[in-house]
């Protein structure tokens, strides 16, 4: 029995309790950490040694020159073996006994011991032995894995593994199977077709499959049935909306300005650009360049300039007392932090005040990067400009028809006016009103979107002492950190465009890895690199390093084709595995880091709300446009801010606006929609690449009682009653009663499968109990049927409608409904 297995068994029983007490925090150190607990003879610097040095030593003996103690620097090989201030040598390769480092970490003398007592850090015996062994073996350094350019690894040979030939679907599976096999684990059988289509529908569109889609897929025998389902979803507009939704978290997109007054902002045209870009499957390199520097492209189109809204999505203050430069500085800082996290998976902002404590980014290099983003003609206070009125990619036809009609009315007006009639305006009153309203609509059609521009005359960039806006240090110019060994070619100007192109240069070691890892995270809940926001030295090592590199290479070589790489992942056998594998498997690998089963996790906030709208038939599908105002309890905005002129009431939307997909909901940073927030949506004040996934009592209250869900239940009931035509004598009814057939329909709508007999009988019993209860409780019937603004089919008997509504509420509260299995 190897160490790993022991570890799992040992922790398993605690995990169950932990996961309940601390939802979202529970985790086992499986994956990469577990591999450090190996008993193999080889010590690997990247896997075993660097994590120790980074965690325990770099704070004082790392890249930060100011904080460095005793002249010892352990992050670089040459420096680590050099003579110290004291004359000793921290590391003497092949000679651990005379290496000062070993003496110090073994010392029992508190004044000598490393790490120092006051750091509250303590090396384990195993870690001390690893360090010794590494020095004994020659103290070889390796470059940090994520800073080495991507090379496509060879495919593992797994043909000899039992059952491999039947299981493998594509090359991804070879890497996964090899790792499973190495750990004495096996893959899981494929998920049922019902489970699989629901999983892939949510993953690619954020919506559940329709019953028709499920039935078609389940009954389809052909070998490529699944591929066709995948392609169908990838080509749908819902895919683009779904992808955009993830991007909006990273882009810290919101409809309000943040900070204290958090007034409304019109930035949705940029959000439409994102949806459109995903719909066109714009290659990721172009997607990157246009958003970071579209304005600097030669002959930039309006849409390319619109794309640069990405780096204007940060909060902007209108608080009267602030100093312009103070906040302008924060906006530039935000751009670096966001861009660094999204594309590089680096915590660049750590080098704002001092050299980075762990990663090879000096303070100087930080401000050299800062210089790229410091050239926007903007202010700190009320810094909304630069802005530009650019059409949304979706609304051209509407705008064209408005303009045509305005033109028509105007020429009519002019023609008459020049005829010198008594009235200068011979349009009818109705036409005058129409003209006015059209002009207003045109003016508001595309509000001016916040975009990037470059100052004509560049601003000097100073290294800011302690990161403070008014502590100007040395002047620096734009450059890339030395670790990437990149310089400007002779014909390149050192501007944002060069920066953006460098991000997607095949030699950039990070962008492709970071991006494919986020796709993986989306499908499996956890990335191959769990710390998807940090690929630096403090980040976790990849669980499957070769697979990550293989995917990154594939991504770049496909021309940065986002659909291609996602298609590959969802077509893999790894993805198609069942997640119904029993408690022991969940206890052994709670986060599924070994990928021995299919992903199973709670849906995101937006997916849950959208799913309720979809299964109840309330969902209104329409691409893009102004943000909308769905249900929220009264007073949530004004109880926080009721200052005249700086606040507004939440005005509930009307009609279709209540039933749009959640990504169109008005996003107010200071008070996000409570339903979304309760299910872990961030407030979008800062860039987020990984949401929490918690399980709380407040979530239960939302699903039970939020009007959106009660209304959805009422509509689902209506669908069940009106859309299921029951003929119990039909041989297809399989001897089921009319109620049972209806229950099956509702159940399948909600979770994508038919109920088991015991589930069905519980539901029948519940339905009959409710019928009895509601006959005696007209108040309940009335209340149930009046939640929500949508009309009710009055032809349905109220008692019956109410009983089915109660049943539907039950279905919409099932764990399975809010879970991707």
């Amino acid at each position: 029995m190897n160490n790993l297995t022991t570890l799992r068994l040992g922790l398993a029983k605690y995990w169950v309790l932990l996961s309940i007490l601390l939802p979202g925090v529970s985790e086992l150190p499986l994956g990469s950490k577990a591999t450090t607990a190996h008993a193999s003879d080889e010590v690997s610097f990247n896997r075993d040694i660097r994590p120790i040095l980074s965690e325990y030593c770099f704070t004082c003996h790392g890249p930060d020159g100011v904080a460095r103690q005793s002249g010892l620097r352990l992050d670089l090989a040459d420096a680590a073996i050099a003579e110290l201030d004291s004359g000793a040598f921290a590391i003497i390769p092949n000679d651990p006994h005379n290496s000062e480092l070993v003496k110090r970490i073994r010392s029992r003398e508190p004044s000598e011991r490393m790490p120092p007592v006051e750091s509250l850090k303590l090396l384990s015996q195993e870690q001390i032995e690893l360090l010794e062994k590494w020095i004994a073996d020659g103290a070889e350094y390796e470059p940090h894995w994520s800073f080495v350019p991507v090379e496509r690894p060879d495919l593992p040979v797994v043909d000899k593994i039992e059952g491999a030939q039947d299981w493998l679907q594509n090359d991804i599976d070879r890497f996964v199977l090899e790792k499973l096999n190495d750990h004495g684990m096996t893959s899981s059988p494929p998920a049922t077709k019902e489970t699989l289509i629901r999983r892939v529908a949510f993953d690619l569109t954020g919506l559940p499959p329709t019953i028709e889609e499920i039935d078609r897929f389940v009954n389809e025998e052909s070998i490529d049935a699944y591929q066709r389902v995948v392609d169908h979803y990838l080509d749908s507009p819902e895919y683009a909306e779904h992808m955009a939704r993830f991007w909006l978290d990273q882009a810290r997109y919101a409809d309000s300005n943040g900070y204290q007054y958090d007034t409304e902002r019109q930035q949705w045209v940029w959000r439409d650009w994102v949806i459109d870009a995903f719909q066109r499957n714009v290659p990721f390199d172009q997607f990157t360049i246009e958003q970071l520097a579209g304005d600097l492209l030669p002959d930039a189109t309006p849409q390319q300039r619109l794309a640069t809204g990405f780096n204007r999505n940060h909060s902007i203050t209108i608080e009267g007392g602030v100093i312009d430069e103070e906040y302008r500085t924060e906006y530039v800082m935000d751009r670096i932090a966001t861009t660094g996290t999204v594309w590089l998976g680096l915590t660049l902002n750590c080098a704002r005040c001092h050299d980075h404590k762990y990663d090879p980014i000096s303070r100087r290099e930080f401000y050299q990067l800062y210089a790229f983003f410091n050239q926007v003609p903007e202010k700190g206070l009320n810094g909304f400009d630069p802005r530009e009125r650019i059409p949304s990619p979706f609304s051209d036809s509407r705008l064209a028809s408005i303009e045509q009609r305005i033109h028509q009315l105007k020429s009519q007006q002019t023609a008459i006016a020049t005829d010198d009639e008594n009235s200068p305006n011979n349009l009818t009153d109705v036409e005058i009103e129409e003209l006015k309203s059209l002009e207003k609509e045109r003016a508001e059609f595309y509000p001016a979107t916040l975009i990037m521009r470059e100052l004509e005359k560049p601003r000097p960039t100073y290294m800011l002492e302690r990161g403070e806006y008014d502590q100007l240090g040395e002047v620096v110019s734009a450059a890339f950190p030395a670790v990437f060994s990149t310089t400007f070619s002779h014909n390149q100007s050192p501007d944002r465009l060069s920066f953006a192109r460098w991000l997607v240069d095949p030699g950039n070691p990070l962008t492709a890895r970071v991006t494919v890892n986020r796709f993986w995270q989306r499908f499996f809940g956890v990335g191959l690199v769990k710390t998807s926001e940090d690929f630096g030295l403090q980040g976790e090592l990849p669980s499957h390093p070769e697979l990550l590199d293989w995917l990154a290479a594939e991504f770049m070589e496909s021309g940065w084709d986002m659909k291609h790489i996602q298609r590959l992942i969802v077509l893999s056998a790894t993805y198609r595995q069942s997640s119904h594998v029993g408690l022991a498997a969940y206890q052994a690998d709670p986060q599924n880091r070994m990928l021995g089963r299919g992903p199973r996790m709670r849906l995101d906030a937006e997916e849950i709300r959208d799913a309720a709208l979809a299964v109840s038939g309330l969902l209104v599908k329409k691409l893009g446009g102004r943000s909308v105002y769905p249900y929220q309890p009264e007073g949530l905005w004004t109880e926080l801010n009721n200052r005249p002129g700086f606040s507004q009431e939440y005005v509930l939307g009307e009609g279709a606006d209540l039933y749009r997909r959640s990504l169109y909901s008005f996003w107010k940073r200071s008070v996000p929609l409570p339903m979304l927030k309760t299910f872990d949506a961030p407030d979008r004040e800062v860039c987020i690449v990984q949401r929490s996934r918690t399980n709380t009592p407040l979530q239960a209250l939302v699903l039970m009682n939020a009007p959106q869900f009660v209304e959805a239940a009422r509509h689902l009931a209506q669908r069940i009653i009106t859309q299921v035509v029951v003929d119990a004598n039909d041989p297809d009814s399989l001897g089921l009663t009319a109620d049972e057939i209806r229950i099956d329909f509702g159940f399948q709508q909600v979770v994508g499968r038919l109920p088991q007999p015991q589930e069905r009988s519980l539901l029948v019993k519940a339905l009959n109990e409710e019928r009895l209860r509601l006959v005696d409780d007209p108040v309940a019937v009335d209340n149930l049927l009046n939640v929500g603004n949508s009309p009710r089919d009055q032809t349905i008997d109220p008692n019956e409608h109410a009983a089915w509504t109660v049943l539907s509420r039950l279905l919409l509260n099932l764990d399975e409904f809010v879970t991707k299995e």
Partner: protein
Amino acid sequence: MNNQSGHHGLLQQGLLQNRRQFFSRSSSGIGALALGSLLNRSLFAQQDDRQQRVGGLPGLPHFAPKAKRVIYLLQSGAPSQVDLFDYKPSLEQLHMTELPDSIRSGQRLTGMTSGQSSFPIIKSPWKFVRCGKSETWISELLPHMQGVVDDICIVKSMHTEAINHDPAITFFQSGNQQPGRPSIGAWMSYGLGCETAELPAFVVLLTKNTFYQAQPIYDRLWGAGFLPSQHQGVKFRSQGDPVLYLNDPAQGTRNSQRQLLDRLAKLNEMRAAEVGDPEINARITQYEMAYRMQMSVPDLTDLSDEPASTFELYGEEAKEPGTHAANCLLARRLAERGVRFIQVFHRGWDHHSNVAKHLPELAKESDQGSAALIQDLKQRGLLEDTLVIWGGEFGRTVYSQGNPDTFGRDHHPRCFTIWMAGGGIKPGFSFGQTDEFCYNIVENPVHVHDFHATILHLMGVDHERLTYRFQGRDFRLTDVHGRVVKELLV
């Protein structure tokens, strides 16, 4: 939207009587593997009070706490220290003289007064009274606080780095001026969990604002930042449902959520058996906890069990939901029930003009309830392990903003006053000194980071050891700063 079914609805329908019934049902009705342990723990929470907690980190508290819970009465907008607590007879002489440059010493001002050509000193127009055995000076605007002066500890030497509201209040709440970090209450919830399974660990109460120029507040101030989001503060509201979506909007003459839960638990259990994912069991538990909240919140917010003496203490205003007095009373009821961190937000202290008119109004709103809370906790024996804090995000200038006749006071980060009480804090004690201009600290400065370190210390937490790894770094509430102000401790 309909949100009319307030918590009284639940009461009327006899749900409270169902409480016992619920307890007897839930233990047998759920029966899922690990669930039992948790439910049983909380089932006995009533008898085994204070021994049990829900959530929190193993190993915390680091040492025996002096305070088990915090009630933080945040006076947003920044009350004027010079008119309320920091008595300066020296200003009699200095009144209407120019603030010397040597005192301001090039300090940054806000954009609101940086353009002023003159900075005339304005003495406080209010009398100060020497009160209590401790002979502490308190403004006549705070007659009730005068009465509890021997129970509180006044810190006159607070200072902060931020000079505008958003960064300053964000700093107070999270230890950082820019958004993104967890709030104090979220740290408490994360580290120490809650002493009840029926209520959240971190509860936020918002006082209805009456001042037309009040600074807004925002969810970030009680947000979880990068901590798991269940640690964010839960607002208890004075309009609509006290907790969002607490009540069934489709309720009939009898509550039917128990039935919903029982059926749901059975269906989810069937699924759990089939799938194996313990997360399903966790969800069943969360539904049960939601139900507990439904049962316990009406009891919490229904003040009919309070004797008349309560309203003599807190004032009649305490009967009106959403007033500061009502929130102080509610805070006591939450504290009694084991909530870890209760924060009351009282807005409206931002008086850039006409201090003479506005400050008495705000002081009146805050005075009686805040003082009553101290007396009430004391008489119930709760003050000794409840830390109460009263204060804003910075102070106000001694010089006039605008016309001295209708003087305002601008933001002042260099010195201001807060008070603390109970939970291991020295009673009847004043700490720190400011200069004769009430402009700079001359003795014992207390920085916001120190304030945080001290709160954590009282709660049994070493502020250097409560950390969370995010973006490769172990973050703390106190960042890399903070000193426990031992001088304030008993």
